Every structure is written in C-alpha cells, then in structure tokens.
C-alpha cells in the first residue's frame, strides 16, 4: 500500500495492527478499507485511541477430524490463544460461519466454550455447515439468532460504522451459488435507507458475495443485488469466509476480503480437482490457517486489514 500523507502512514498503520493470530485484523479508518498484508517483523503496537479494531475468524469447522487437520478444535484454541495475547484488546469479533462441521449440538458447545475464552462480544453469521441440522438452521438460530431477523441476518452500529451480517447459505438452488433471497434483500434495502452515504459500511457473510470461482460455487447468486444496494456508500468493506484462503480485490469504493480458516486450507481456484480439504505437510498447516484483524480509525483514512497465521509469533 502507498503511504498516505493525510492518514496513518504505512509503518504506523502496520504497528497498529501487529499481532500474530489466526484471523483477519481489520482496521477501519473512516473510509476506504485497506489490506495491510502479512506482517513478518511483528513489533509491539499502540492503537490510536480513536480507532476501532475488531477481529474476524472463520471456518473453524469444529468436529472436523480428517487428515487435513485431525484436531480442528485444537487449532481454534490456538487462534483464541493468539487473541488473548494481543497487545490491545479488539472491540469485538465476528465469525463468518462454519463454526461447526456438522451442526451438532456438541460441536456448537465445544466451539462456544473455546471462543468464549476470548471474552469478546461475538457477532456470527452461519455457514452451510451450521445449518444442516434436522430443522435446517434451528440449532444455529437458537444459539446465535436472538437479535436477528429471518434466517439470522442483522445489523449494528459501532464507532460510527454500520455493520451488516447476512446469511447466504440457505435455500440454495440446484446448479446455483450462495443465496440471500428476496426477503433478506428487502430487509437490507430498508436497513440502509436514510443512512448517510458517508457512513462506512462493513458487510459480512459466509460465502463470498462476489464471484470468486463459479465452477466451485464460490459466489452468491444474488450477491450483486446486495452490493447494488450499498453502492452509494463511500466506503464498503465486504468480509467473507468459506474458501479457506485469502482473496482480495478493490472495486471503486468497495473492498472485498476473504479470511483464512482456523481448521484446514482449501486449494486455490481450479488448482485441484475439487475444493475439498487440502492435505499439507503437518509443519506447514499452521502457515495456512489464520485470522484477521481490522482497524477503523477516525476521519477519512483507510480501513486496514491484517491477516495473520497460526504459525506467526
């Protein structure tokens, strides 16, 4: 990223976001979000008092025990340990879905127990693995949907930023991709109506809202309709999971970012016969799992995202 005279300079921004965990570190600086890339030489950090920092973890797949990672609960625990070791406490954490592998009560219990150790306010959206209980999503909603609408979508405001959690893993159509549906899109339209276009927007959902790779279903059929409703805003950050790797792009005022999984990596689009769990040498696994840290500073400055792996620090 280029240094910005009027904003946090590169070095300072990096320092603000240094940590070594397993998610995406998001720094929202009042305007266009920015990915900071990986940090090699982590140093102590001081976060500006006006900045809002939150974490993103994703795809913990608690219950997964196949060769690609025989202990997904263990690597989730490692990620949460990293959160606890952060020099400054994030305001909250979002989980972009696939908390569990098979929507079993015991998997949700284990995930809650481990994630709860971070002692952070949590904001969840479900992945397709979280809604395969007999009642197709009831187990998830009973736990995490108390303040949500419909299948679990909601919004909240923090530090002047409007956060929107969407659900795109239900009622999927044969041959299709992720799906939001008319009811949710109508709610979204209503949710942002009347909001000033200068309000920074952070929208998160499990499956990428933009088309990453159609052959593997990595996109959302009506994602463009949701993004269309957010087009007028000066800063829109789209955070997703599902694909177990970092993919980013910037398009106008919109920044797109997917987070790593805390459980197992998946291949790059088209790099393997299928998007199934990628088996890597044991010593390499933790370099492919991670989380993200996001900082939003006040004023028209970039939002910064730092992705860190479990192997760092």
């Amino acid at each position, binding site marked *: 990223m280029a240094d910005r005279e009027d904003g946090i300079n590169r070095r300072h921004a990096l320092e603000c976001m240094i940590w070594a965990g397993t998610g995406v570190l998001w720094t929202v600086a009042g305007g266009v979000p920015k990915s900071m890339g990986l940090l090699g030489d982590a140093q102590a950090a001081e976060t500006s008092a006006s900045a809002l920092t939150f974490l993103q973890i994703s795809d913990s797949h608690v219950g997964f025990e196949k060769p690609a990672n025989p202990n997904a609960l263990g690597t989730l625990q490692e990620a949460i340990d990293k959160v606890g070791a952060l020099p400054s406490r994030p305001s909250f954490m979002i989980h972009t879905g696939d908390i569990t592998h098979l929507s079993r009560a015991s998997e949700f219990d284990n995930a809650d127990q481990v994630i709860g150790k971070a002692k952070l306010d949590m904001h969840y959206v479900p992945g*397709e*693995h979280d809604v*395969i209980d007999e009642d197709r999503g009831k187990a998830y909603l009973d736990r995490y949907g108390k303040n949500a609408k419909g299948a679990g979508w909601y919004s909240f405001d923090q530090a002047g930023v409007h956060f929107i959690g969407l659900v795109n893993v239900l009622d*999927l159509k*044969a041959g299709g991709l992720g799906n939001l549906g008319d009811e949710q899109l109508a709610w979204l339209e209503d949710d942002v109506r009347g909001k000033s276009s200068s309000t920074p927007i952070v929208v998160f959902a499990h499956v990428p809202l933009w088309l990453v790779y159609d052959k593997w*279903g990595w996109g959302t059929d009506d994602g463009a309709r949701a993004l269309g409703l957010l087009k007028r805003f000066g800063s829109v950050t789209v955070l997703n999971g599902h694909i177990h790797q970092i993919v980013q792009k910037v398009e106008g005022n919109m920044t797109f970012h997917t987070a790593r999984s805390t459980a197992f990596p998946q291949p790059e689009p088209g790099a393997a016969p*299928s998007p*199934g769990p990628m088996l890597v040498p044991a010593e390499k696994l933790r370099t492919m799992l991670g989380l993200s840290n996001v900082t939003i500073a006040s004023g028209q400055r970039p939002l910064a995202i730092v992705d860190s792996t479990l192997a760092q620090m």
Partner: protein
Amino acid sequence: MDAILSRRGVCGLLLTLPLLAPARAEEEAAHIMIDNFVFTPPELNVKTGTKVSWKNEDDIPHTVMGKGGGFRSKPLDTGDEFSYVFAKAGRVDYFCTLHPHMVGSVIVAD
C-alpha cells in the same frame, strides 16, 4: 412429502410382504459415488423400481436432494450412504444442498 408417503408405502408393503414376496422380482440396485465434489456417474439410467444409493467418499459432508423435492438425504459424512427407490418413470434431477453446483440426474424407464 413424497418421502413420508413412500415410508408409509413401505410400511404397507411390509404388512403384505408375505403375500407379495413370491410374485416380486428382486429389487434392482444401482450406485452413485460422491467424490471430489462430483456425482459419478452424473447421469444414471435405471429401470423403474431400482434402489439407487449414493455414497460419500469426500472428506466433506454432502447431501442429495431431488430438484423438485421428492427426496432429501441427511448430511452424509465420509463413508455415509443414502438410498432412494425410484418408483416412477421419468427424469429426476438432484443436487447437493450444501454445494449446489453439484448436480446429477437419474433417468428412470419402465
């Protein structure tokens, strides 16, 4: 709905089985493999009354659901199987509700 009906059908069948059994031909069976996020074969031709079973060989769960409803499996973890008897002639398209880009068809003929 159809699944419930067919379950009732099976119950009814069980009650009358001793009478019907000698007259019935042996049930035909066919298999579809789920591997690398693909149904193989993607198109399967069977005779009416064939019991088709799907087995998941992937390290990720999948499901099998008829496109217009009709049948829906539970999530199939690695090694799990689901089967359904195709009682009517015609083409039945199905897909995985978790990964809907995974599609397949069973073509049933008398």
